[in-house]
Structure formats: C-alpha cells, structure tokens
C-alpha cells in the first residue's frame, strides 16, 4: 500500500510546526526524529513505562501510544518546553533532591508530575505514588522522586501564591 503523506500542524512548546508525514508516525517519533526533541525518551515502546510522557493540551499522555496526526491543532509540551529563563520548579526540585539517577525515565516522570500537581497542588505521598503509577524508573529511585515532587509542590506554591500563607 502506498504511504500517503498527511500535512499536520500542531503547536510544540509554544511554536507552531507543520510537517508532511505518514499517518503511522507516532507522536514520540515525530518529536524525536522530525523535530529533534530527543528529551522525550522511548523506553518500552509498549505503553507501559511512561518514559515517553508529554503533555497534550496540558494532559499527560504516553507519546508512543498516540499518532502525531491525532494531535492536529493541539498543543504539545515536552521536557524541552519547561525551562524558560530559569529551570522549571519541577526541574529545580529534581536537581536539588536528586530525583534522577541515570535520567532515562526523568522527563516522563516530570511531565506526569506536572499534571499531578495541577490536580493536587499539595499532594500527599500516596497521591504522588498513585499519580506516578504510569511511570517506571529502572533505577528504582522512587524515594527521591517522591521527595522531588513534594519539593516541586512547595516551590510552585511559593511561586504562584506568594501572598498566601502556608498552612500545615
């Protein structure tokens, strides 16, 4: 069968991109190979490990299980889109609390944790562990990942609500 090319346009990290691609190109491959955004990792390629997690319209999604053509007109954020002039608080927290060892899972963990903190700005440990159920760390560094996400939560609450008093 012929491989028809389809034109797609989406916003990636705030920039509009258009490409002619085969419909079977997965979002993970589109990001890595078409756009050179290799911070999104492919671990298992079978929807299990979450290393490939990116945000689509703000929601955490495994990019190895989404076709790029499905994201037509949508807004994708990858790990490369987090830091502005300074590190994103999630990145700063992972650096400070040693949330990564080999770093392979880290971009997926951070993207997942960003959605998690949107739902629970002040998460309990069990909310963090449950929320990160869809990401596997082969270095098994879950303790420091949990600490990093807790730290990110406190950095982000200070950043976003400087006037509000911390309770508890």
């Amino acid at each position, binding site marked *: 069968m012929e491989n028809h090319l389809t034109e797609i346009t989406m916003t990636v990290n705030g920039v509009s991109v258009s490409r002619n691609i085969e419909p079977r190109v997965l979002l993970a*491959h589109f990001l890595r190979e078409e756009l050179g955004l290799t911070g999104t990792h492919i671990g298992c390629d079978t*929807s299990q490990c979450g290393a490939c997690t990116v945000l689509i319209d703000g929601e955490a999604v*495994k990019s190895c299980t989404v076709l790029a053509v499905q994201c037509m007109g949508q807004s994708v954020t990858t790990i490369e889109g987090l830091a502005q002039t300074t590190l994103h608080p999630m990145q700063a927290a992972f650096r400070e609390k040693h949330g990564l060892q080999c770093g392979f899972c880290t971009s997926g963990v951070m993207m997942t944790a960003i959605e998690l903190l949107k739902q629970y700005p002040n998460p309990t440990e069990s909310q963090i562990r449950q929320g990160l159920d869809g990401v596997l760390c082969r270095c098994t560094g879950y303790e420091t990942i949990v600490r990093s996400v807790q730290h990110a939560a406190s950095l982000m609450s200070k950043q976003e609500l400087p006037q509000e008093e911390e309770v508890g």
Partner: protein
Amino acid sequence: MRTAPFEYHRAHDIDDALEWLTRDGDREVKILAGGHSLLPLMKLKLATPTVLLDVQGVSELKGVTMEPGWIRIGALSRYVDLTRDPTVAEALPLLSQVAATVADMQVRNRGTIGGSLCHADPQADIPAAVLALDGRLIVVGPRGERRMTLDEFIVAPFLTVLEPTEILSAVEFPIPSGPQQSVYLKRPHPASGYPIVGVAITANVPTPGHLSNVRVVVGGMGSKAYRAYATESTLNEKELSPETLRQAAEVAITEAQLSDDADVPYHSQLIRTYVERALHRLYGGVA
C-alpha cells in the same frame, strides 16, 4: 515500533463516520477512539487496518446527558471524564470508581468507555460496571439504532456483535430509584494493572440491614464479566450478617466461570475472597 501503513481520516460527524464505514467493502476500516488498545495491537502488527477512522471530532459520541430516568454517556467519554464528571459521580458513583481504577493517569487521559467495551478484553474493568449498573449499549449503523445489554453485546473474548459498519454511540444507564449502594473491588495484576479479578456489586437498601435488587458481577476472569445469580439470591431480601455474607461468597465459588487456563484453586479463592470483601464494604455502608 511502527504500525503497518494505513490511510487516516477524521470523521466530522456521525453520518460522515457511518459513510466511511460503508463506503468500500474491500477495505478494513477501523474506528480509532483513544487508541490505547488499538495502537498497541497495530504496533505489534496484530491489527493491520487499511483505513483508520478517527472519531475524536464526532460530537454525537461525546458528553454526559441526563434524560428522564436515564443517564447517557457518550462512547468517547474517557476514563478521566468519568472520574471527574459531577453528574456521573452523583448518579453512578460505581462507574466513576471503576474508571479511577483503570491503568494509570496517562491511560485514563486517553482510553474511552466505548473503546473498552468494543475491544471486549475479558480482563477489562468497565464491563463489570456496565453489567452491575444494567447499562444499555446504543449501537448505530446504516439500518438505524439498536440497544442491547452487555451480555448481548459481548460474545466472547475480543468479540462483539458490532458489524463492521456500526458504531457504539453511547451507553445508557437507568438512574437508580431509591438509595443504591455500590462497590467495586479489584485485585490488579502487579505488573499490568489489569484486574485479576474485579467484583462489582450494586444493591438497593430498602431498610437498614436488608438489600434488594442485588447485582453481583465478577469481571477480569473467564471469557467475559458475568452476573453471579445464585450469589445474588442468597442476599436478596435476607437479613444481613457477617455469616450471610460469608455464605454468599461460598456460593460465588460454585458458580464461578473460569477460563480454560485458570488456576482453579487460586482463582476460586480469589472470587470467594473478593466477593466477601466487597460485600463487607457494601454492608459497612448500609448496616
């Protein structure tokens, strides 16, 4: 991994989608909903459709609507929608609860109730909820609409009565009259998260300590989710006590529908234990 090549189309509305499905009998046109069963299968080349029909833009398949006596849940409703929708949480807390146990956040952000039902994986969570809540599946096709129960819809593992030209448009649930209690208790597989067993129970509570209209559903085992009718009879209109709950769980073993490759002693124990624990949760809520 790449899938085999295919043509990709986006349906604008339900008529457009139905037209695509009937247009050309020689080509295998597959509906793409959340893609979280279909794309993994396509990557393994276990599915090789020639055309993928993306229905994400079909508004007729979306949303939750209340009708007199019924609540209608569009087939494209994702697990995350079911867990957050206030109408669902209020009228069908069991469905929200079940959706929250599916997989992980990322999968719940994509997978849909319709996709789960059409995929008909015997290990899925959603079918047990649909059976326990007496849902009706609304199927549309070139010859109009038909409504059916889950039992009528799912024939065997990964097999439904859907014709290639038909679409599951929604699932409708009767709104329970009077106070209803419900519970879902799942033992997830430690690696995959799919249920090894999932027990869904709904019951009316006419007076404290009594149940009526009890529906006990066992999912995750055997070829499809099933109602444990004999177990239900041991509970209906009876005075509840820890002893009656224990007896009911024993009855559940006698009517277990296990798959051919089941580890019979282990899976029977699981059913007994999970039925009893689920009943205790329900009882705890009604005593």
